[in-house]
């Protein structure tokens, strides 16, 4: 079982990296979202292999199930056509992508060098089930739960306020 989880970690990590790289380079929004779903599912498998089954379920339910569906709704509402694809391809062509990729790669190389040089001891894979997480969440971290609820309330109010069409503006849609 441990060997299986270990190989599952490596396979899922490679899938997550490849699908994320595909997601950020697509020109069609729906294709990028589908690759993002694959990436999130792979990260869910990574979480399970790391011994966090609750987060594996939440990753699938909330990230792949709710947040990406929110993105899909917006893409459907925008109804972007072929010209958006053309302009997207035009934005991505040329040398505009070289700078960010080089800078990010340098930063990533530094981080990997620091992690490898520090040689963090120990391994991951100790199972921490939903029971322990729940007990800690509603024990020492209760204030965090309250603050998260206030953050979500603020987000709901802000989103509903921004989503309302402004009164008196012509051509504002519905």
């Amino acid at each position, binding site marked *: 079982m*441990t*060997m299986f989880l*270990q190989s599952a*970690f490596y396979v899922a*990590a490679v899938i*997550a990296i490849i699908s*994320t790289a595909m*997601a*950020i380079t697509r020109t069609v*929004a729906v294709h990028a979202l589908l690759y*993002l779903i694959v*990436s*999130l599912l792979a*990260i869910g498998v990574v*979480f399970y*292999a*790391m011994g*966090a089954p609750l*987060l594996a379920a*939440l990753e699938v339910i*909330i*990230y792949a199930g*709710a*947040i990406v569906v*929110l*993105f899909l709704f*917006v893409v459907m509402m*925008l109804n972007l056509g072929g010209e958006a694809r053309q*302009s*997207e391809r035009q*934005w*991505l062509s040329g040398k505009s992508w070289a700078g*960010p*990729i080089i800078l*990010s790669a340098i930063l*990533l190389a530094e*981080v*990997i060098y620091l*992690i490898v040089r520090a040689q*963090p001891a120990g*391994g*991951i*894979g100790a199972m*921490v089930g939903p029971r322990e*997480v729940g007990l*800690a*969440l509603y024990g020492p*971290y209760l204030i*965090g739960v309250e603050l*998260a609820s206030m*953050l*979500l309330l*603020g*987000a709901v109010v*802000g*989103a*509903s306020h*921004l*989503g309302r069409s402004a009164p008196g503006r012509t051509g504002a*849609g519905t």
Partner: protein
Amino acid sequence: MTEIPLAYGLILGGILFALGLAGLLMRRNLLFILISIEIMLNGAGVAFVAAGSRWGQPDGQIMFLFILAAAAAEVSVGLALLLRFYRQHHTLDANRASEMRS
């Protein structure tokens, strides 16, 4: 009992974060910028869970739950802003957002 080394989990989080950062910097479409932010939050979450799992404590998972709440809030407000922007400018080009007047 052989386990996954902690460094691999942290490096996976770092790679995902760097990919999200590269996407954030090189895209001009606001929708892809929001997607890249999601990827970055996920990378940070992977590092949290890996570090929490190393000690066999639930704290890393709880931090990921908070990241999840922050990501949900950020996405709802961000997408509402995006829809509003598209209604006014009829494009998703981030360069068109350089002016503050409506």
